[in-house]
């Protein structure tokens, strides 16, 4: 018998966690002499108060959906992919290659090309640690995190020595050509008569992210390979008995994971910056871990968690601009949410479970 109803598991527990994080954040703000209620108003206004605010929130959320999916698909095979950041950075290289070196006639084709190349670049970057895990037993957590640092250095090298246009000091590629510019929400929603802020970065990649969610759902719960991934994740011994090859599952799940992480670049590199710069992923690879954890590795949960973190990211930025709250304090607030929804999940879960058990006993 389940310890508590499903709605409590997927809604009540995250809600309590967020509330606790909010309370502690408020206390921290109070201690530094700021007004927490005012801060809350600024955050809401800055993140969801206008179409421009939504444009930023959903832009960040798109990044987090991709990296959240990356962590989730690997986790279904109990592979803990900490390397989403590096894989996303490599995906950026894929996008840059697609956009700079191939003359696309139209943005739709450019988008398809960028999806494929970013996916391949990210997948290759994840496949190396996966191979080391499957064949050599090198722990995936260690190797993927080390590959993040290799990715930083590799991109540094590429931008400084290879991809930087001549005569420019900044380590970045040239801007992508007009044909590789993606329509943003202003362009898309304008088609159906909705007036959306022009200068917000949310773009068509958001819908690609939603399609990726659908893809993950179908893959994990409707295909043979997804079934084998879940088998392996739930019980390696049972998967061995069933004739599922551990090597194959580790490789496939990690390649898919790297692919999702790499595809994030169609949002931030292609859709927003329209060129590749240093550190393009800006930590989204790590936030993906929290998003997957909070979203219970399910696409719907991941979308909701990604929007929450998009809200925190955008609201936090506004907080530091408007309320003169230092950026570090904003990081503290974001970290508290990650801490409560992720690491301290059990702290909230067990008392709630006990309450439900007690209620059930009273009924019986």
């Amino acid at each position: 018998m389940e310890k508590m109803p499903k709605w409590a598991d997927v809604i009540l527990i995250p809600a309590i966690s967020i509330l606790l994080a909010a309370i502690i954040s408020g206390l921290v703000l109070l201690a530094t002499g700021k007004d927490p209620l005012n801060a809350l108003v600024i955050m809401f206004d800055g993140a969801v108060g206008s179409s421009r605010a939504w444009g930023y929130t959903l832009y960040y959320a798109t990044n987090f959906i991709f990296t959240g999916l990356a962590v989730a698909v690997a986790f279904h095979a109990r592979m803990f992919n900490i390397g989403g950041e590096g894989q996303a950075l490599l995906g950026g290289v894929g996008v840059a290659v697609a956009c700079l070196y191939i003359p696309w006639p139209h943005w739709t084709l450019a988008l398809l090309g960028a999806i494929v190349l970013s996916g391949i670049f990210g997948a290759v970057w994840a496949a190396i640690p996966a191979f080391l895990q499957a064949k050599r037993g090198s722990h995936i957590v260690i190797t993927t995190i080390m590959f993040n640092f290799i990715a930083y250095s590799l991109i540094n090298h590429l931008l400084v020595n290879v991809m930087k246009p001549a005569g420019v000091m900044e380590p970045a590629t040239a801007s992508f050509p007009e044909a590789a510019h993606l329509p943003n929400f202003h362009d898309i929603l304008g088609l159906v008569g909705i007036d959306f802020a022009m200068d917000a970065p949310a773009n068509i990649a958001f819908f690609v992210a939603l399609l990726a969610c659908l893809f993950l759902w179908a893959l994990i719960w409707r295909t043979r390979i997804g079934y084998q991934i879940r088998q392996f994740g739930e019980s390696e011994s049972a998967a061995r008995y069933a004739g599922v090859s551990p090597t194959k599952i580790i490789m496939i799940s990690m390649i898919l994971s790297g692919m999702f992480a790499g595809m994030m670049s169609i949002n931030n590199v292609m859709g927003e910056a329209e060129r590749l710069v240093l550190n393009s992923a800006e930590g989204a690879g790590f936030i993906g871990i929290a998003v997957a954890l909070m979203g219970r590795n399910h696409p719907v949960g991941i979308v909701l968690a990604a929007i929450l973190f998009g809200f925190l990211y955008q609201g936090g930025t506004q907080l530091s601009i408007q309320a003169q709250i230092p950026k570090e304090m904003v990081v503290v607030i974001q970290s508290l949410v990650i801490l409560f929804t992720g690491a301290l999940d059990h702290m909230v879960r067990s008392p709630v479970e006990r309450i439900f058990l007690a209620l059930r006993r009273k009924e019986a």
Partner: protein
Amino acid sequence: MTTPAIELKGISKAFGPVQANKDINIRVMPGTIHGIIGENGAGKSTLMSILYGFYKADAGEIFINGNKTEIPDSQHAIAAGIGMVFQHFKLVENFTVLENIVLGAEDGPMLTPSLRKARAQLKQLADDYGLNVDPDAIIENIGVGQQQRVEILKALYRKAEILILDEPTGVLTPAEADQLFRILERLKDEGKTVILITHKLREIMEITDEVSVMRRGTMVGHVATAKTSPAELAEMMVGRKVLLEVDKAPAKPGRTILEVKNLSVTDQWGVKRLKEVSLTIRAGEILGIAGVAGNGQSELLEVLGGYQKATGEVILNGEAIDLTGLHSDGQTRRSRGIAHVPEDRQSEGLIMNFTAWENVALGYHNDPKYQKNALFMDNAAIRKDTEEKMARFDVRPPLPELRAKSFSGGNQQKIVVAREIERNPDLLLVGQPTRGVDIGAIEFIHKQIVALRDAGKAILLVSVELDEIMSLSDRIAVMFDGRIMGERDPENTTVQELGLLMAGISGEAA
């Protein structure tokens, strides 16, 4: 009469619904080596863990040297003079012998005086008991036998008068085991009390003074080793439950289905688990493999099931099976007509967090009738198949959406058996088909196995339940130490004879 060194009265301990120890009474006299024997899972280790303060007994009393003693944790056990040597050593690998011995028993904040004192005492102990170990050697650089001595020295350094050894020879070579026994005899001569937990009859006969036999959480009896025989102990260990009669006609063996020649398995530590095993099974017969758990039966099933590499030859229906290459996987085995009810349904046969219908596809996810098209599986078809299987095998409750962990043991096993038998395999591998299964389900599962035999299929049955082997098998092979000790006809053999073979004593010698 002398006071027992240890006396346990009415010890009971349950883990959830499992009664690991039930009203156990035992007296261990000082200056003796007392064996506790029983099969895996009989409750020996639980009993000793209670004595050492790892578990708290639900009921019962512990007397040490006649005094009632409470042992809430291992510190109290050590203070009461009890030392324990675990099956899996608890040593710090990159510390020296001396550091390991002192660890947790330091005299003060400074380490050097403790080490100096320990070094002197170690020399004394080495002289007294013949326990020679280099005190400055690093643990990971010395052999397993030496590591075990360090564990014994640790206990003696803490002034243990009563030493408990849990399956001490499991990791030792025969020569190392002999050395250990000489040490235990020295300990006994010096007045220490030794409790030896094992499932190996040979060790009991060789070294103990008295022996207590456990079976399924209860104490079956105590005997003086000199007044018993391996056969009697084997019978006590395995037990003679109410014989479950299986209604079956004489076998009509047909062509040879399975031929195994010189099958050997070496595990990752280099220990040979299967040694040149050869056997054949014909259509329409059940070959039962009897033996105490851990004598190579599991490896035999794993090799045939396709998830353990091996050397040798396996021929199915006249064609060789790939044992190490690309086609040595479980999927190929299934397509060749081998089905497998694994020994451990909770870790292999089922995925506890999966629903019943997801478990019905376990191993058969490539079955064409479970596919909707080239891309997607037909989950509805699997659910429907599950519903039908549940009806035919009377699985209760018949709910395909229920998770495997929510079914009782018997119903879990019925799901596994239904999945495998309904594949109508040429060869069915069955491991412990009725372990933890209620009487009704046992009868049902036995009937299904016999029905498959009568349909002209070959069945390899592995079970530690002698009754099950006796009543189901058409031929019985006994395994001991990775070898087949011999084959017997169930009509013309006795539990005693099989028990001797299971203990590694071949029929000719006894």
